[in-house]
């Protein structure tokens, strides 16, 4: 298949299917009420889904492993979590997390 055609086929089909995923339940529940047990469970979507997204970017891998000794990224992520919890500020979280990572990487390099 022609490479350009293949690329645009992927763009259009993936774009359409991703949009269908995004619209799915918004459209479904537009005219129906959300059952109470489901509404209760859905309140945990942000905490569960974002935690699942964050860990693979913080832990060493792939394949994902829990190192015996915390890596700079793990410590920096914990520090950023505390800053985010207290300040609710994305900029402060970004600043604290990056600064912590750079300092820790330098320190780890020196220790060897």
């Amino acid at each position, binding site marked *: 298949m022609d490479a350009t055609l293949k690329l645009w086929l992927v763009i259009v089909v993936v774009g359409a299917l991703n949009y269908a995923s995004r619209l799915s339940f918004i459209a479904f529940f537009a005219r129906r009420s959300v059952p109470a047990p489901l509404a209760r469970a859905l309140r945990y*979507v942000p905490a569960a889904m974002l935690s699942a*997204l964050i860990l693979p970017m913080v832990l060493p891998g792939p394949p994902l492993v829990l190192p015996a000794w915390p890596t700079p990224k793990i410590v920096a992520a914990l520090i950023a979590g505390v800053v985010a*919890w207290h300040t609710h500020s994305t900029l402060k979280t970004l600043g604290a997390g990056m600064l912590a990572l750079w300092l820790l990487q330098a320190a780890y390099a020196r220790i060897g």
Partner: protein
Amino acid sequence: MSVHRRAGCGAPRAGFSVQAPARGAPHPAVNRSVRHILDSQDFRDGFADMLPACVGLIPFGLVCGVGAVAAGASIWGALGMSAIIFSGAAQIIAAQLLAVGAPVAVIILTCVVAGLRFLMYSAAIAPYLRPLPPRWQQALAFLLTDQAFAAAIRRFDAGVNPRAGGLHFLGAGFALWLCWQITNVVGYFAGNLVPASWSMEFAVPLCFIALIAPHFKSAPQVGAGVLAGIAVVALDSLPMRLNLIAAGVIGILAGTAVELVQERWTRR
């Protein structure tokens, strides 16, 4: 981020009364409505509130632009990916698989599996968007990304009315979309401007941490996060990154279970 500060204040006439345009020339009412949306304080707050997260996403957008080059895309193909697919994870997967000449069906299936989390986001945000007209639901659905979703849920939970929350969501989603196009194009032409030794890719999880840490206020929310974290590592060997969606479901069930246990204890 000033999420709670201006809850509920919006320009009084920035309504959701966007009329369908007549065929041909755009209906004057549409132009007026668009201006009212852009002028509304909630839209502008949403836009401004998302800018710090946009800064954190710059490295991710650059990587996606570089990926489009590797996939052999023209600038229009690269823009098509960032503007239409509008999902960093799906774009990177698509670019990698295109670069190695994988069959179209495999590429599409893998990208859609990575996008299954949008089903959960859609369900979780649906109760808040119910009062809005279908057109608004359809527009906001297009802007439903990890960041916009988490920010919108926080905003709605702070108790804003549906219209103010919708306008804020629209502003935040638009800021992300715009920033995404710019960073993807810069990445396409200039490559990855940031040296790898700076570890700027770490800004992406930091953005998510900033969005999610304020949710961890109760035992069930912490339980949901911890269990999802354990599950995503334990199920790492699943194909097509299905561990993400599985961990999400496990975390949701864990949060619900902790809440039920908590209720039973307090009732005694």
